[in-house]
């Protein structure tokens, strides 16, 4: 490997968001040598954008809360396709992980008796989200980053993994290139943790940062790992819709948690019109009761704005499609109305939602303390991802682990708000621990120099292509067409014919991606980077589409116009995507193991 800089680590972690940092801390605490590779600067990962809070049954605000209720809420939200073992571990371990953040310096908002404050969120029965105004993700990532600084972790910033390296069936390391000079680097490690986040950049309207190009899912698939539940893409109900340049930027569910209401152009609070059967007993039947709930009245039930995200997003789409939307194709989200309820509402709103106030004032010239926001669904999260073992987070490839959004299982068909940040710290820790254990029990595999050389040559191809005819296309055009096509054909409402045409488009776009040309040299070249991203975006787009075609029903984040109902025949399995020998994708149905009786009972008790 003399041609390339080689780094030896026991555990290599790819991605430095919440899950990657927590995994790095856990692995370092286990005493192994840890390398952390991230595409951006440290502390800039998508986690920094998480707003609402981290879900953990601390029971600081409502003492009826406990891990059992959190478990039941998570399973109900996921329509029972969750990996129930992960849902159990998550609900049990999240409080300890949150308290640990405080011990590392995080400063959460406080209750009147000085404990960590918790707020209401969609799908959670009790106020459960520990938060810092609406910048909880920043607090979390900064705390983890600052704690990790002193642990002797080797951080390789602005470094992008382009291929995982294997020795036979097991993982042996990764090949990456550094952004500033475009040099290739070989990372040699017996265990690799993927914590690369989501796939939102496969769609046109998204809340996700540029980094969410499905790298982990695609790398794992190429390395032979199975993907799971890729059809379940979460469209967050409230993204900004105006002005066009901010379309998709998130408006936190915290706005609704603090009393924000959704209305259509006729002024109708439309969320009361359609309350799903399995949530009816937990949902307020009057506006008055809903208000009492957000004010902390324990005898009140939640307002329908706090139903699960899939449901709220579909109700918004319905209003828009039936001609009752706002002027720019969304609906109105209003928090300013609380001035009729509480004195000094503007100051209250600025205190509770400082970042939203700032965002709308600066980007849309709207003062949310006196005017409503225009909002509509935005691609936000993928519930599916790399299939992992619930306890250890190891994928189907020995030595390859995954955590956070890049892994599948915890959220089933739909994720509850706030369960993502807790997912990161609960399963980031587990992945780091078990990866360290694996690395201690196994020596690093061998790296095949020829395959490294092949991958390097492929990666450099876009520079060598000559500009004649169709071959002179740049990477941005292909990327944008893919995003628009996926938004239109595999977006919030899906049908078989549109998805079949999406598959054809993906084939054509892949041919174009193989011909794109980049200018300039290798130093910090975003065109080249985008050209390399395309294969990951195309792979996850195909996996989402194939899985969505296979699931002929509507459930959670997956809605089929041609099969608009939930079908019990699809309730008992996950859909997996495997790699055939020729690199193509194969779909299979994997039965969900029978749930333990004690867990079944918890679900019954919480119905």
């Amino acid at each position: 490997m003399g041609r390339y800089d080689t780094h030896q680590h026991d555990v290599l972690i790819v991605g430095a968001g919440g899950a990657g940092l927590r995994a790095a801390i856990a692995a370092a605490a286990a005493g192994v040598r840890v390398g952390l590779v991230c595409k951006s600067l440290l502390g800039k990962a998508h986690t920094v954008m998480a707003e609402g809070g981290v879900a953990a049954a601390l029971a600081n605000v409502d003492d009826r809360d406990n891990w059992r209720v959190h478990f039941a809420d998570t399973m109900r939200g996921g329509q029972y396709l969750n990996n129930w073992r992960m849902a159990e571990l998550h609900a049990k371990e999240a409080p300890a992980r949150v308290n640990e953040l405080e011990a590392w310096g995080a400063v959460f908002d406080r209750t009147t008796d000085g404990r960590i404050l918790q707020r209401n969120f969609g799908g959670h029965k009790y106020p459960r989200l520990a938060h810092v105004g609406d910048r909880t993700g920043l607090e979390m990532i900064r705390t983890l980053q600052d704690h990790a600084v002193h642990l002797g972790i080797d951080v390789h910033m602005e470094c992008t993994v382009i291929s995982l390296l294997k020795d036979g069936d097991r993982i042996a390391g990764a090949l990456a290139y550094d952004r500033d000079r475009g040099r290739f680097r070989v990372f040699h490690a017996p265990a690799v943790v993927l914590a690369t986040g989501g796939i939102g950049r496969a769609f046109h309207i998204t809340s996700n940062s540029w980094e969410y190009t499905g790298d982990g899912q695609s790398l794992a698939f190429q390395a032979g790992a199975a993907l799971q539940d890729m059809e379940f893409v979460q469209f967050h109900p409230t993204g900004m819709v105006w002005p066009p340049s901010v379309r998709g930027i998130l408006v936190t569910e915290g706005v609704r948690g603090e009393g924000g209401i959704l209305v259509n152009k006729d002024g109708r609070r439309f969320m009361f019109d359609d309350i799903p059967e399995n949530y009816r007993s937990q949902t307020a039947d009057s506006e008055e009761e809903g208000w009492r709930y957000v004010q902390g009245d324990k005898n009140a039930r939640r307002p329908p704005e706090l139903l699960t995200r899939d449901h709220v997003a579909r109700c918004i789409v319905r209003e828009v499609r039936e001609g009752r939307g706002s002027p720019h194709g969304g609906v109105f989200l209003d928090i300013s109305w609380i001035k009729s309820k509480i004195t000094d509402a503007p100051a209250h709103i600025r205190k509770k939602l400082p970042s939203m106030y700032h965002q709308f004032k600066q980007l849309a010239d709207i003062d949310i303390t006196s005017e409503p926001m225009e909002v509509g669904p935005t691609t936000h999260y993928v519930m599916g991802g790399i299939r992992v073992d619930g306890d250890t987070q190891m994928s189907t490839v020995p030595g390859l682990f995954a955590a956070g959004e890049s892994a599948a299982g915890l959220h089933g068909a739909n994720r509850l708000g706030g369960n993502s940040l807790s997912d990161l710290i609960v399963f980031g820790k587990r992945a780091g621990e078990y990866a360290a254990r694996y690395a201690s029990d196994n020596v690093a595999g061998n790296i095949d120099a020829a395959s490294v050389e092949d991958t390097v040559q492929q990666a450099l191809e876009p520079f060598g292509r000559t500009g004649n005819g169709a071959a002179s296309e740049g990477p941005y055009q292909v990327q944008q067409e893919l995003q628009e096509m996926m938004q239109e054909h595999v977006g919030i409402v899906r049908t078989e014919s549109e998805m079949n045409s999406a598959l054809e488009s993906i084939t054509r776009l892949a041919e174009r991606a193989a011909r794109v040309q980049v200018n300039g040299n290798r130093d910090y070249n975003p065109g080249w980077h985008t050209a390399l991203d395309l294969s990951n975006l195309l792979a996850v787009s195909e996996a989402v589409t194939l899985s969505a075609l296979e699931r002929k029903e509507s459930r959670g984040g997956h809605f089929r116009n041609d099969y608009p109902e939930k079908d019990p025949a699809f309730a008992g399995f996950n859909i997996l995507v495997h790699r055939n020998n020729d690199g193509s994708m194969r779909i299979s149905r994997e039965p969900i193991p029978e749930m333990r009786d004690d867990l079944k009972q918890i679900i019954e008790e919480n119905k």
Partner: protein
Amino acid sequence: MTAPTSVSRDIVESGQRAARRSDSSAGSQTRQARFRVWRGDSSGGRFEDYETQISEGMVVLDAIHQIQAESANDLAVRWNCKAGKCGSCSAEVNGMPRLMCMTRLNDLDLEQPVTVEPMRAFPPLRDLVTDVSWNFEVKKRIAKFKPRPPDAADGTWRMAQADVDRVQEFRKCIECFLCQDVCHVLRDHSKHDSFIGPRFLTYVAALEMHPLDTVVRTAELKEAHGIGYCNITKCCTKVCPENIAITDNAIIPLKERVVDDHYDPLSALVRLFRRKLARDD
């Protein structure tokens, strides 16, 4: 019914007003604008002129992305969130340190070319991207957070909101390093070896004023961190996109602590005694 019809009507009417206001100039109307973007690397560079179509609501980062897609595929720029939350897209726009994603084009004079250049206090890497790695090294040198023993048997602490408000102000920092960029000690005098800059003075303030922290950092502030170099020009406060009162709330109180601990023997004794008591609790 707690959201009476009149409230709903107000919501819709004000929404429509907002929409009309933006519609009057946006979406359908575009105009050409000129941008002078610094292109180059550590060996030098120059401004290049670009033209692109812009519409209302666009920010500088949108224009840069458009130029990148249309005519300069290899134009280097850092960004992540495009919502003022990650602090990646720091640059100097018309000579002012700004986040490109939070700088609306309709706030600039578009009769003139918009000048976009990298932060000048850090070595250029390529185009708008600078080498900010020094900042990450600085943090390693600051004594880490060390909490007092937990207040409750379950290992948790009790803190009043009033006591965490100030720390939370500092923790809003998104590490965009614009304050470092504008600070004359770093920008003009290159005291990177002996001065940690406003970002890290704010970071130390967050630790020092944290209700749970037990470490005393005044000696390192005075010596290794060079707090004495700051002469309170408040430039850092002016450019902070998070509106943190860096000078008034972080740096000045820290300077006072340094003076108390190191230049005023009486208060130093009192403080030492108090801290010892607190630790012996």
